[in-house]
């Protein structure tokens, strides 16, 4: 009969729970889970690939750095400054720990326990991204004896903290750890 082919009511609410609802819910849920799980590779493939992640850690040998000496290297394609502070520099940094500064931080917060003479910071000015001077021999260390950014005149102290100038934050200390007494792994 012609009426056999009338479309089936989808809501069924007026009839209560029907036998066929079970298979509808089961099939659509399974398809939904399948469809959602398809998204995982599609989204994950945009995350850093294995080679990028491998290049995302850098080992630096700090054993050869003399007190008062800095080295410049790279970390994730950006400049990295590693400095061994002299005893006077450590004292000066600690003395300033409570001083009035834009981004307050103590030397202890910016170094590792037992290695407070090793300062590891990014060589990127937190103002607009230039590479500050002061890491190489003979470069201008600014008024606070640390780093000086020539672009807009930001002065960082011996602990890499912003003391004068437009930069809003201290030089960034990346995640690092001592894998041995003389080697750090950054990132």
């Amino acid at each position: 009969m012609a009426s056999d082919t009338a479309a089936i009511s989808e809501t069924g609410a007026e009839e209560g729970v029907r036998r066929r609802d079970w298979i509808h819910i089961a099939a659509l849920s399974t398809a939904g889970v399948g469809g959602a799980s398809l998204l995982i590779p599609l989204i994950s493939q945009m995350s850093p690939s294995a080679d990028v992640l491998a290049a995302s850690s850098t080992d630096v040998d700090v054993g050869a750095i003399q007190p008062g000496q800095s080295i410049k290297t790279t970390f994730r394609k950006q400049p990295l400054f590693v400095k061994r502070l002299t005893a006077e520099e450590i004292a000066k940094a600690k003395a300033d720990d409570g001083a009035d500064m834009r981004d307050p931080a103590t030397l202890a917060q910016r170094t590792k326990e037992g290695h407070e003479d090793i300062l590891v910071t990014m060589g990127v000015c937190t103002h607009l991204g230039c590479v500050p001077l002061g890491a190489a021999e003979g470069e201008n260390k600014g008024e606070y004896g640390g780093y000086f950014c020539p672009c807009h005149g930001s002065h960082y102290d011996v602990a890499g903290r912003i003391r004068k100038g437009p930069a809003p934050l201290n030089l960034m200390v990346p995640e690092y750890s001592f894998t041995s007494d003389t080697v750090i792994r950054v990132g």
Partner: protein
Amino acid sequence: MSFAWAKQYEPQTAFTKWLDEKLPLPRLVYNAVGAGYPVPRNLNYMWNFGVLAGFCLMLQIVTGVVLAMHYAANAEVAFGTVEHIMRNVNWGWALRYAHANGASFFFIVVYLHIFRGLFYSSYKAPREMIWLLGVVIFLLMMATAFMGYVLPWGQMSFWGAQVITGLFSAIPLVGEPLQVWLLGGFAPDNAALNRFFSLHFLLPFVIAGVVILHIWALHIPGSSNPTGVEVKQESDTVPFHPYYTAKDGFGLGVFLIAFATMVFFLPNALGHPDNYIEANPLSTPAHIVPEWYFWPFYAILRAFTGDLTIPFTGIVLIPAKLLGVIAMFGSILLWFVLPWLDKSPVRSGHYRPLFNKFFWFGFIPCMIVLFICGGAPAEEPYVILSQIATAYYFMHFLVILPIVSQIEVPKPLPFSITEAVLGTDKAAEDPRTGTVTAGGTGTLPDGSLQPAE
């Protein structure tokens, strides 16, 4: 267009009413694949492959766009970037295998879709345009797949490109300059690889556009069905949703099980190991073969080993190479005239005993032989076999089909789809006087919906 008894879209909420007034997209969906589109109730699983082909197109576009984030089309690094995808990119191996096997599955599904069209004469009036658009889609698919296979820049990529672009040099007069223009050089190199990447990215979207036209053209007369008898009345149809959304969903599930099996357990089964060797213009592989889906056409190309000459004079009219090229393209281009070659007013092969025999014992074996010969080396016995099969192929469409369609005696058709499905149709018993009788509520003796007679 839809049938008179199709359900009308009725927006319920204030938002859907507003949307229906401004941009009636939900109405379009409802009328195309929803409860508002009546479809013959007797479609068998051979009618699933159109939807599966559309799914494969979406799959290839999604995986392709994502792969393009990591691939570089420069001859120095292309092969390396594919290995980078396989080894470094998160889930890169899965995406690459999905895209490569997706192409194979796209062709499997499309070939089954075409074979449905050939057996049930889906190409006949009033559906000729759907068929023509379909042949265009197939040609675009072949171009896309060919260029895509070149991109990994393996041995088969390079030498396949060399062979196929070499075909153009067979064209008299303009052949060689045309080949150089196509390649941007004198052999496949960086210029060719870059332009193939660009076009490979573009064509799927062109295919998508033609697919929209293909479906639009289909929705004018609506689907054919396994009996070939056109829809006459409401009892001949069911609404697309939920009947065919459910059936197509099930078919998609079966398809995905097969697809997942290949991608995760047999990912290189359909590929050629030589393509894991970087392209070397100085070293030709022992047997150059295209991917399996091109094998029948490759067999036709290679079947022509002798020049067409004027006998006893040694004057060459058409060299063998050009004959092969013409035959290969001709074998697909001839599908464009199929609606006018097959003169039978009966559509379905189930009701055409002579056509049926030639289809199953002539055409299908011929395609199988061409398939096998295409993947085999160009030696005996494959050469003679491909020549016989090529001869049959053209005879089947150009000679056998027109003659059979005129002389055969078809089996009697059912009165309607309802009769074919339910065994009886009340409308068949009512006198066809043109007045609506009290018997069947759905009977509309509408002369415009008669089968093509």
